[in-house]
C-alpha cells in the first residue's frame, strides 16, 4: 500500500503559537481573575486588616495607633469571653450532634418510599428558608413560659408542667440549640437524603441477601457509606455554629444575664456597642483561627484526594 515517493524536500513548517491562541490560553485565567481578586481583597485583605486592627488601640472607629497585644490581654481577661467560649462548646456540640442525628433520622424515614415525600420535604426544609429576624418572635413566644408551650400545656390542664429554659440562665443556651436544630436539621436531612439516594442499590440488596436486618444494614453498611456526607454536614454546621448570631439575638439577646453569649455576639457587641473595636477584632481573629483549625485540614484532605 505504501507508495514510494521521494522524501519531502522541504522541512515541515512549524508555526509558532498565534496571538489568538495565546489569548485563548489566557482567557480562563482572565475570567477567573476578577473573582479571585475580589476574594483576595474582600476576604483576605479584610482578614489582614482585622488582624492589624487587633493590635491597635481602636475603640469606636478604626485608628491605626499601635497597641501591641493589649487587646488580646483584655480579651482573655474578660469573663464574658470565657462564657462565650464555653457556650460555643456546648452549643456547637449539641447543635451539630442533634442536627446530624435528627437530619439522618428524618432522611432515613423519608427514604422508605414515602408517598407524601413531596409534601413532607418542604415542611422539613422550610425553616432554613426563614431568617430569624422573621421567626425569632414566634420562637420567643413559643419558649416563653408565660405565653408559650408551658402556658399552653397549663391550658390543657397539666398545671405542673414546667418549661422555663428560656428565662433560666442555666438552661437558656439549650433553647438556642432547640431553635438552631429546628432551623438547620431539615437542610441536613436534604444532604443525607441526597447521600442515601446516591448509594448503589445493589449493595443494599447484597446486604439483604447476606442476612442483614434493616437495622444492621443501616448500621453496618449504609451509615458508614455516608461518611462523606457526615463530613460535609459537619463542616456546614460547624461554620453555621461559629457564625450564629441572628439566632441568639432574636431569641435571648445573649441573656438572661450573659448566659447565651457566643463568640459572634461577643465580637459584635465589643466592636459595635461597647466601643472596644480592638478587643472585638482580637476576638474576630480568635474566631478565624478556630475556623481555620477546622476548615483547613478538611480542605487540604478534600483537595488532595481528588485530582
Amino acid at each position, binding site marked *: 500500500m505504501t507508495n514510494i515517493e521521494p522524501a519531502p524536500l522541504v522541512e515541515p513548517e512549524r508555526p509558532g503559537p498565534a496571538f489568538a491562541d495565546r489569548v485563548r490560553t489566557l482567557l480562563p485565567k482572565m*475570567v477567573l481573575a476578577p473573582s479571585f481578586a475580589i*476574594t483576595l481583597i474582600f476576604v483576605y485583605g479584610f482578614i489582614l486588616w482585622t488582624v492589624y486592627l487587633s493590635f491597635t488601640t481602636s475603640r469606636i472607629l478604626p485608628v491605626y495607633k499601635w497597641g501591641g497585644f493589649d487587646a488580646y490581654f483584655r480579651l482573655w481577661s474578660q469573663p464574658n469571653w470565657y462564657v462565650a467560649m464555653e457556650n460555643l462548646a456546648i452549643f456547637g456540640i449539641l447543635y451539630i450532634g442533634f442536627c446530624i442525628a435528627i437530619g439522618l433520622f428524618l432522611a432515613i424515614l423519608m427514604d422508605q418510599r414515602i408517598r407524601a415525600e413531596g409534601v413532607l420535604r418542604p415542611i422539613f426544609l422550610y425553616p432554613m428558608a426563614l431568617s430569624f429576624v422573621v421567626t425569632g418572635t414566634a420562637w420567643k413566644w413559643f419558649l416563653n413560659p408565660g405565653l408559650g408551650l408551658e402556658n399552653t400545656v397549663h391550658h390543657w390542664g397539666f398545671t405542673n408542667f414546667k418549661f422555663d429554659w428560656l428565662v433560666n440562665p442555666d438552661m437558656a443556651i439549650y433553647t438556642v440549640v432547640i431553635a438552631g436544630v429546628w432551623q438547620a436539621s431539615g437542610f441536613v436531612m436534604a444532604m443525607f437524603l*441526597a447521600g442515601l439516594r446516591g448509594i448503589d442499590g445493589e449493595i443494599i440488596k447484597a446486604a439483604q441477601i447476606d442476612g442483614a436486618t434493616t437495622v444492621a444494614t443501616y448500621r453496618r453498611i449504609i451509615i458508614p457509606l455516608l461518611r462523606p456526607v457526615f463530613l460535609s454536614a459537619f463542616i456546614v454546621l460547624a461554620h453555621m455554629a461559629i457564625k450564629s448570631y441572628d439566632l441568639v439575638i432574636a431569641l435571648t439577646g445573649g441573656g438572661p444575664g450573659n448566659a447565651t453569649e457566643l463568640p459572634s455576639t461577643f465580637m459584635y457587641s465589643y466592636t459595635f456597642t461597647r466601643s472596644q473595636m480592638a478587643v472585638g477584632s482580637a476576638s474576630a481573629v480568635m474566631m478565624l483561627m478556630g475556623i481555620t483549625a477546622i476548615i483547613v485540614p478538611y480542605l487540604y484532605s478534600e*483537595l488532595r484526594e481528588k485530582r
Partner: protein
Amino acid sequence: MSTASDTVSAGQAKGARYVIYGALIVLALIYLLPLYVMLTTSLKSLGEIRGGDMLALPTAPSIDAWAKAWGTACIGVTCEGIKGYFWNSIKMVVPAVLISTVLGALNGYILTKWRFPGHKLIFGMMLFACFIPFQAVLIPMARMLGIMGIANTTTGLVFVHVCYGLGFTTLFFRNYYEAFPDELIKAAMMDGAGFFRIFWRILLPTSGPIIVVTVIYQFTNIWNDFLFGVSFSSGEASPMTVALNNLVSSSTGVKEYNVDMAAAVFAALPTLFVYVVAGRYFVRGLMAGAVKG
C-alpha cells in the same frame, strides 16, 4: 416448609409503615409549629392574642393585620407598610443572585475544565471565604464601598452579596462540573467551540439541578440577610428584613403582634415559595455534587 416466623408477613410490613408515617407526621407537625403560630397570630385580633392560647385557632379570623402590614403600618415617619421594602429586596436579590450564580458557574467551569497549576490553592482560598464571619468585614467593607462610590446604594449591596456569595456558588458548581465528563469539553473543542461557547452551549444547559441549588441557597441567604442590609442601605431603600426589624422591634407603643406576624409572613413568602416549588430539585441538585461540600 416455611414457618410463620420466617416470613415477612404483610401485617408486619404494614405495621412498620404505620410507625414510619406516624413518626414523620408528628415531626412535621412540630416543624410546622412556628409557622402555624405566625399564621394564626396574624389572623387574630390583638385582644385575642393577649388573652389567649397561642396554639388556638383564631376565633374570628381577619386579614386586617395583613392589609395593615402590607400597606399602612408605620415604619419610621412613613406609614406605607412594607410593600415598598419588598420591592427593594427584590431589586437587590435578583441581580445579586444572578451575578453570583453566573460567576460561580464560570469559576466552577474554569476550576474543573481549564485547570492550571495552582487551581487547587485558588479554589481552597475561595472556599475558605465561605466561613468568614460577616461582622468582621463590616467596617472595611464600608470603607471600600465608599472608595468605590457605591456606598449606601443598592448596587453596593448587590456587590457585597456577590462578594460573599462567590465562595458558595463556586463550590457548588465546581463539585457539579467535577463529575461532568471531560470528553464533552474535548469534543466541543474539536468541534471548534471556544471557551465561552463551550460554557454557554454545552455546560450551562446541563446545569439545571445545580443552578436550582445555588439559586435557592443564594436567594434565601441574600433575602434573609439583615446585617449587610442594615449597614449598607438606608431609609426607604432598605431591604425587607431591615424594615421588618424596624416594624417589629420598635421600642415603645403597643405591640401589634398580629401586624408583626403578618409582616413576617410577607417577608418569608418568597423564600417559602422557592423552597416549596423547587424543593424536589434541591435534593436532586445536592445529589448531583453539592453534598461533597
